[in-house]
């Protein structure tokens, strides 16, 4: 958890909108929003039908808070946030997890890279620089990387990193249909199919006790594979 500071958001980031899908994050959401507000002015939180006080906690901040009346999954909440950000006039859209594991302080540098290199999307990678990743998490992630690189046809070092920055043009084309966790793989397949200009950026993931308790189970990984398999036939 970072300390609250009085740093003003970078004026160059006035068109940047952060989208945070949140499900039962009442314990941390307000702090994560406050930390991110030190970097970026516009934050959209999509409360995905939480059973706790996520909506109330997020509403206490300056974030724009939307609420799904029923839980539809992280992919669905992300798409809601992206569509809303576009309606609000976003020039770039950043996606972050709402448990505070992604480094919001990286946003200015990442946006600069996206703009200067004319990229469509910049994707975070926890494997581009050495960092401690819990063993079972590392094995699952590496398997996911192998599978996604094979099926999506693009080469990445981290395929399930929620830290992404999309240009407005790219975000307008995004249409996530995988409501739950398999949206991460779906986005990568979309990048390959739409021939988007992408790049990875090293990101450090903060593995706290809280974020680990909110993480996916091993069964979740199996479910992702099943979702992706059936999505092949749904055309």
């Amino acid at each position: 958890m970072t300390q609250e500071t009085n740093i003003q958001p970078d004026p160059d980031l006035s068109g940047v909108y952060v989208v945070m899908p949140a499900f039962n994050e009442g314990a941390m959401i307000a702090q994560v929003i406050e930390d991110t507000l030190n970097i970026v002015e516009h934050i959209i939180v999509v409360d995905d039908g939480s059973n706790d006080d996520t909506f109330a906690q997020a509403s206490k901040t300056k974030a724009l808070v939307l609420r799904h009346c029923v839980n539809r999954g992280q992919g669905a909440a992300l798409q809601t946030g992206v569509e809303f950000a576009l309606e609000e006039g976003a020039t770039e859209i950043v996606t972050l997890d709402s448990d505070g594991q992604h480094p919001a302080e990286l946003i200015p540098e990442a946006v600069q890279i996206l703009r200067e290199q004319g990229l469509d999307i910049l994707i975070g990678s926890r494997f581009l620089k050495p960092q401690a990743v819990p063993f079972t998490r590392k094995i699952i992630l590496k398997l996911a990387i192998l599978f996604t690189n094979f099926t999506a046809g693009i080469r990445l070092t981290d395929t399930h990193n929620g830290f992404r920055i999309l240009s407005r043009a790219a975000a307008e084309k995004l249409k996530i249909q995988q409501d739950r966790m398999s949206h991460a793989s779906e986005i990568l397949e979309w990048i390959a199919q739409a021939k988007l200009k992408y790049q990875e950026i090293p990101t450090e993931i903060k593995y706290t006790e809280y974020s680990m308790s909110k993480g996916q189970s091993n069964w979740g990984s199996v479910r992702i594979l099943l979702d992706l398999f059936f999505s092949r036939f749904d055309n």
Partner: protein
Amino acid sequence: MLFQLFFALFYLIYLIALSKKKLRGKIHFTELLFRLGFWTLALVVVVYPDITVHLAQWMGIQRGVDLIVYVGIAVLFYHAFNQRLKHIRSSITITELTRQMAIMEYRLTHSGKK
């Protein structure tokens, strides 16, 4: 013989119920034909089980009952697969509705606050 009798009785009752449904306009003609065809075929197989033996041997399967089991499993798999796809499509619709409601609710709540 007893099973055949029971099945024929069941078939008759089903036929009456189906006719009533059709008369009340509760099912379409194609649905009537499909149901009628399916249960008539089942009755023929129950009354003349040797038919399945001939059919099974023609298809390279030893016993008629094996053929019924194989076909049954294939139909169930096909049905389960289709149901899964229907479920996915329904989910997409529910999500889109939820999304539009969330955005609309925000706009209604915050109209005039900017």
